[in-house]
């Protein structure tokens, strides 16, 4: 090791002496190696002394490069002078070393790198957030990637931009199940890849019903230069992908730190990087200029059909289904006909998104599109821009609440009533009653929810722990009939049962949601699997039903929820609960709930009030 260093220094000093550059000593090299920008180029964590995040030995020139920035610096200098073509593989390192006068500029021509840069010809970088998508576990919290916009006229259409994405690269023929598993629990090789931005638009807005938000970054030319030269160094380099911390969003923050030295974006996200939180960090750091919104195709279609009459909507379905050839006999005027054809066309295309092409459907699509045409061009209604996701409430929550429960027969501890104080901590993310601004409608996504309860005579105990609680309510309508579902897994203390046992439980339900009274009503058959060490039969399975009505808003939300579970021999559990949430400010709210329970061990009613702070 020491000999290697000496050799490197000798080469270096020889080179430097001849070009009259600075003489470099071991001490000063050490100082250079500790500089944040050098560490950033090697992906060492900002706020800890751990090894580099890069898990790919091919990225490092020194054998110990992954753990030692100094060894990598020394070896980089030595390797660059021994093999000048290596400079083309590490243009960002080269640039930094030249800036620091540790390396003489070279007239080296890097053909492949130059071709790539010329082809991209980037003059603007955009941070893109694809909104959350409950139907895919890895996308539940959203996804971020960068868009690279070409200079000049080519920048006039986003279809000519490239997307730079950090994620898994799935080799053809890879074992799907293994990847699916590792996608959730981490550890699959992630790498940067590029693809045309229009493919991302197709993937997100067409296939997955996801809105996209485009945050134009205010990077100067030399910052874009640093970013791209470093991206080139990461070509084909593997990072192990982990869902919560070392994910797509974290990697992008690292890139931005390289682009603009002195930025610290990653420090807050060492343990978890929620995409929307990282976007907020980038906005707060003053890196964002213009922000654009790109609604999903589904939302565009909903906006289009909402502007039609009930009669027109019936024809839209008939046209798309082939039950109606044209609108000649409908008495609609020309404009109304075109709007109807356009809606039918988009509805048909939407339904056929993933279907194999048939000439019958293609011919019908073309016929509808022809009907939608209008001399001079048509315009479709514009989807109104919803509140921006990074302006929504923060993704962790702390709550403090008080509650009171009264029993009609006997209370668990022999009293007629009990009073308690609850302390809640939720790691992530959003439930249906939280302020809606910036979050998708009908979605609840809770991971890691812990409730501690203090109650007289019992002291502080675990009241509840939800590992996951996900509910997706998608309203059914004239055009679509999606399934609504819920899964919940965790521990729960039955606070109205004798001795208040702590039970482990899994709940799953699936059913439908319908728009009712300016909110949505849901009906979902459910199954509950419960383990209770205090009961004679400790494992129990109970079929049941969840039924309710939900109103969501940016300021007020409310839900009336009924639940029935049939434990057959062990009786039925019935609860009815009304909850309301008032958003006090972006990150704090007040929640009130009242309930009535009819349980095998007695009746009770309760009220609870809590203050909730998002952070």
């Amino acid at each position, binding site marked *: 090791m020491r000999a290697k260093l000496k050799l490197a220094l000798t080469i270096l000093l020889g080179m430097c002496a001849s070009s009259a550059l600075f003489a470099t000593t071991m001490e000063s090299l050490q100082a250079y190696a500790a500089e944040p920008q050098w560490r950033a180029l090697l992906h060492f964590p900002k706020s800890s002394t751990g090894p580099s995040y890069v898990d790919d030995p091919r990225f490092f020139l020194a054998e110990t490069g992954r753990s030692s920035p100094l060894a990598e610096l020394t070896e980089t200098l030595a390797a660059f002078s021994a093999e000048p073509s290596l400079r083309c593989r590490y243009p960002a390192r080269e640039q930094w070393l030249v800036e620091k006068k540790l390396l003489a500029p070279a007239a080296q021509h890097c053909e492949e790198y130059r071709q790539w840069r010329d082809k991209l010809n980037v003059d603007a970088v955009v941070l893109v957030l694809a909104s959350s998508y409950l139907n895919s576990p890895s*996308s539940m919290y959203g996804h971020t990637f960068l868009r690279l916009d070409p200079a000049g*006229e080519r920048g006039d259409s986003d*279809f000519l931009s490239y997307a730079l994405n950090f994620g898994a690269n*799935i080799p*053809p023929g890879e074992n799907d199940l293994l990847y699916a598993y590792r996608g959730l629990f981490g550890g699959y090789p992630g790498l940067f890849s*590029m693809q045309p931005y229009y493919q991302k638009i197709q993937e997100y807005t067409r296939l997955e019903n996801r809105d996209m938000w485009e945050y134009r970054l205010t990077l100067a030319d030399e910052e874009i230069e640093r970013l791209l030269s470093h991206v080139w160094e990461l070509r084909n380099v593997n990072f192990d992908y982990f869902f919560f911390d070392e994910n797509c969003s974290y990697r992008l923050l690292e890139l931005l730190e390289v682009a603009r030295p002195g930025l610290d974006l990653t420090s807050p996200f060492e343990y978890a990087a929620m995409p929307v939180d990282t976007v907020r960090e980038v906005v707060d750091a003053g890196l964002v200029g213009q922000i654009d919104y790109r609604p999903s195709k589904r939302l565009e279609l909903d906006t289009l059909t909402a502007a039609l009459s009930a009669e027109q909507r019936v024809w839209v379905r008939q046209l798309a289904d082939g039950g109606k050839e044209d609108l000649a006999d409908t008495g609609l005027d020309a404009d109304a006909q075109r709007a109807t054809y356009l809606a039918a066309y988009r509805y048909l295309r939407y339904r056929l998104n993933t279907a194999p092409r048939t000439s019958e459907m293609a011919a019908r699509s073309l016929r509808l599109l*022809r009907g939608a045409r209008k001399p001079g061009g048509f315009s479709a209604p514009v989807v109104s821009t919803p509140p921006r996701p990074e302006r929504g409430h923060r993704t962790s929550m702390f709550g403090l609440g008080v509650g009171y429960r009264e029993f009609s027969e006997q209370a668990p501890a022999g009293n007629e009533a009990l009073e308690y104080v609850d302390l809640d901590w939720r790691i992530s993310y959003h439930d249906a009653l939280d302020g809606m601004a910036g979050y998708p409608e009908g979605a609840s996504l809770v991971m890691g929810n812990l409730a501690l309860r203090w109650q007289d005579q019992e002291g502080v105990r675990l009241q509840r722990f939800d590992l996951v609680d996900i509910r997706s309510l998608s309203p059914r309508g004239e055009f679509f009939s999606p399934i609504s579902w819920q899964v919940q897994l965790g521990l729960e203390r039955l606070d109205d049962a004798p001795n208040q046992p702590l039970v482990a439980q899994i709940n799953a339900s699936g059913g439908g949601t319908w728009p009712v009274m300016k909110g949505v009503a849901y009906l979902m058959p459910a199954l509950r699997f419960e383990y209770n060490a205090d009961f004679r039969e400790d494992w129990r399975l109970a079929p049941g039903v969840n039924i309710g009505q939900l109103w969501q808003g940016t300021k007020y939300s409310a839900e009336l929820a009924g639940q029935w579970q049939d434990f057959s021999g062990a009786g039925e559990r019935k609860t009815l609960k009304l909850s309301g949430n008032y958003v006090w400010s972006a990150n704090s709210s007040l929640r009130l709930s009242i309930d009535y329970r009819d349980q095998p061990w007695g009746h009770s009613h309760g009220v609870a009030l809590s203050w909730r702070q998002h952070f």
Partner: protein
Amino acid sequence: MKKVMMATAFLAASSASFAVAPGGPNCGWGNMLFSGQSGLASHFLASWTNGTSGNATFGMTSGTNGCSADGTLTYGGKSMVNVGQIMDEFSEDVARGEGEALTAVAVSFGIAEEDRAVFKTTLHNNFDSLFPSADVNAESVMNSIVELMKQDKQLAKYVS
């Protein structure tokens, strides 16, 4: 299974011009109107891992079997946005007379901003000759565009 079916459809639809057109189903000049997104292989897995399926290029190469992986294809020596992959968006833009896909094609042809409105109007007015049937493929749409441009005083200079 799906792949086999697609390949079969591809063979059945192939014609003389098709056979020489680069690209496979859903990716090249041979791609037909309204092919949908079924060509996005293992989309489920890609979405599950936030990843990309197929070979991850760096915007550098044409991928396997002549299927453009970088979003462009060569047409008459010019690098064009891969119209075969954006046929759905493009046809709707032509019907509408405006849109990102239409602009992308205009810019790919090198049409200056002041001439773009004429280009868009010309295509819009000739929707039926660009898309005479739903079985038209990207290559023949491109040929029609070039023909239309040649006949227009303002646009002819871009294709001469």
